[in-house]
């Protein structure tokens, strides 16, 4: 017979600070490298970048010491390193494009990073217990769907490069889908905690699979319909795949039934196949995926990306010495290919490891969490980062057709950066709750306790 006891964990805050300074050191070295390679001088804005990075990230570290002492110590350094490397690469591509100091994409990205980190600190200070979010399950559903549909509205919706994903108000453009990703994860977690018993226990067995009842298929069909709607109306294969994949993964984690994955995947394949037959923009993507070097192809983006990555080889050309700017969207959709060219296979694998570790920390948080809602929320948030990386890197290495998703923390673009810092803040909040010794719990409100039934909580 075994028993599970908790013991007082180390908070790990000092480890966090050391790793954080290490990460900032790497970013600053990369920054110096870009300046030396491109302009033959130490970059003039080095001090400003260093000061902003240190003030904001160490500020977030202090907020964690104050409000979430037991939060996972590895999330902040990893996120900081990825964000900083993204900043350096965007600056390097600014130099290549010959932008002057006033119109650098990198300075805007630096401001967005500062805003993202400040929002993360705000989430940690204001949200004392992530289970409060469960009260807004259905509000989250409505808000999430509205955010997804916003870009389709006539006046504020805005189309760029064939995808209708942006809204533009008073000169600022924003991608509401990034925030919708978080809000919908909250909804999925709240909904599945309440219904997972019905979804996992009821139904007939057929060929070794537990098949759900017809009426329990409703939510899955609704999520599928929404993702197909995004595919058709906004022409964005990436977000469509992301939302549906997220829902199916969370459904599987909540119910432990493989049948949901099989049903979900076949639904998605059927939808994708029909979309491919019906819509020319999907056909273009598939054509580019199957034969990127076709001289009559409509775009040579995939081909240029592949050539760039090939040029980088094992060790890379070195920051500032390759030609990543020859590819379109080198600082957003294709930023990962830019890194592959300049840091080489060795560098790119280190970055993939950082993402793997980030996702691992999220899933570890889910395992450590004692109640169902936190488990599902942490799983969903971590899985969405992992799936996004798969879709992006898979797209540019020709594993799947290329889609326009952002690379978390790296891509130029404010909405994505803000959304990812909020995701990290939520993971920190959940992990703080999961690791905090029982004696120090802030709330012991039985209403908030969702570990009522077996299932995930086991």
């Amino acid at each position, binding site marked *: *017979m*075994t*028993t*599970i*006891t*908790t*013991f007082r*964990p*180390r908070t*790990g805050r000092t*480890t966090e600070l050391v*790793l954080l300074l*290490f*990460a900032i*050191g*790497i970013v600053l*070295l*990369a920054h*110096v*490298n870009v300046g*030396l*390679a491109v302009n*033959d001088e130490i970059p003039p804005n080095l001090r400003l970048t260093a000061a902003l990075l240190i003030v904001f990230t160490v500020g977030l570290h202090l907020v964690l010491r104050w409000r979430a002492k037991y939060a996972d*110590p*590895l999330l902040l*350094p*990893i996120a900081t*390193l990825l964000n900083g490397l993204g900043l350096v690469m965007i600056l390097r591509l600014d130099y290549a494009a010959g932008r002057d100091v006033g119109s650098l994409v990198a300075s805007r990205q630096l401001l967005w990073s500062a805003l993202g980190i400040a929002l993360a600190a705000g989430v940690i200070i204001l949200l004392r217990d992530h289970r409060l979010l469960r009260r807004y399950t259905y509000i989250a559903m409505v808000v999430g769907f509205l955010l997804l549909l916003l870009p389709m509205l006539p006046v504020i919706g805005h189309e760029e490069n064939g995808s209708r994903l942006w809204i533009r108000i008073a000169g600022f453009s924003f991608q509401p889908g990034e925030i919708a990703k978080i809000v919908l994860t909250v909804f999925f977690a709240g909904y599945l905690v309440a219904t997972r018993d019905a979804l996992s226990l009821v139904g007939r067995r057929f060929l070794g699979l537990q098949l759900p009842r017809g009426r329990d298929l409703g939510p899955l069909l609704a999520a599928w319909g929404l993702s197909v709607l995004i595919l058709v109306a906004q022409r964005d294969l990436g977000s469509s795949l992301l939302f549906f994949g997220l829902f199916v993964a969370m459904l599987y984690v909540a119910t432990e039934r493989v049948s949901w994955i099989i049903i979900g995947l076949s639904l998605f394949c059927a939808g994708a196949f029909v979309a491919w037959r019906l819509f020319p923009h999907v056909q273009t993507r598939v054509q580019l995926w199957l034969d990127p070097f076709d001289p009559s192809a409509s775009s040579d983006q995939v081909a240029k990306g592949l050539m760039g990555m090939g040029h980088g080889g094992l*060790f*890379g050309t*070195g*920051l500032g*010495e390759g030609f990543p700017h020859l590819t379109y969207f080198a600082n957003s959709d294709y930023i990962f290919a830019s890194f592959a060219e300049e*840091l*080489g296979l*060795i*560098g790119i694998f*280190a*970055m993939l*490891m*950082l993402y793997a*570790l980030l996702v*691992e*920390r999220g899933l570890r948080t889910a*395992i*450590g969490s*004692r109640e169902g809602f936190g488990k599902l929320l942490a799983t969903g948030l971590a899985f969405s980062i992992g799936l996004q990386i798969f879709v992006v890197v898979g797209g540019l290495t020709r594993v799947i057709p290329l889609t326009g998703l952002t690379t978390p923390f790296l891509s130029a673009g404010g909405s994505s950066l803000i959304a990812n810092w909020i995701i990290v803040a939520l993971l920190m909040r959940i992990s703080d709750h*999961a*690791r905090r010794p*029982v004696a120090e719990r802030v709330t012991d409100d*039985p209403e908030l*306790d969702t*570990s*009522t*039934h*077996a299932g995930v909580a086991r």
Partner: protein
Amino acid sequence: MSELTLNIIRLGILALLWAFVFSVVGALRGDLYGTRVLTRSTPGRAERAPGRAPRSVRRGPHSLAVVAGSLRGTTVPLNEGGLLIGRNPECSLVLTDDYASGRHLRLYLGPDGQWYADDLDSTNGTFINNQRIGTGHRLEVGTQIRIGQTILELQR
């Protein structure tokens, strides 16, 4: 800037990136924090332990048994530290009863060598002789304690 310096910096960045990855993994290695699984002490060892305990403990109850409910037949040895009963995985006796709270009931040895029960503000209550108990209720061997559909009893 000389080619050599740039090459050193370039390789230095790659080395530092991997050094960072390895230090993160190193920090994570000692990090199986949160919960840990232990082998529960066997009743035999628990009986040897009370040799140092006051006389009354040796004469008093030795174990807590579940006499009704889904865990019927389970026994948990009593020791001086007392024990916690509830649905929370860190309790000494983890109930699988929907009417039990996370931390439901605490048993402890009073200064007079008798066992006492504290209801820890459970939602559905703890009952002895169909009376809902509060804190500091004295227990005798054979007293039946009801939590939802589970009935517990102190045994010698």
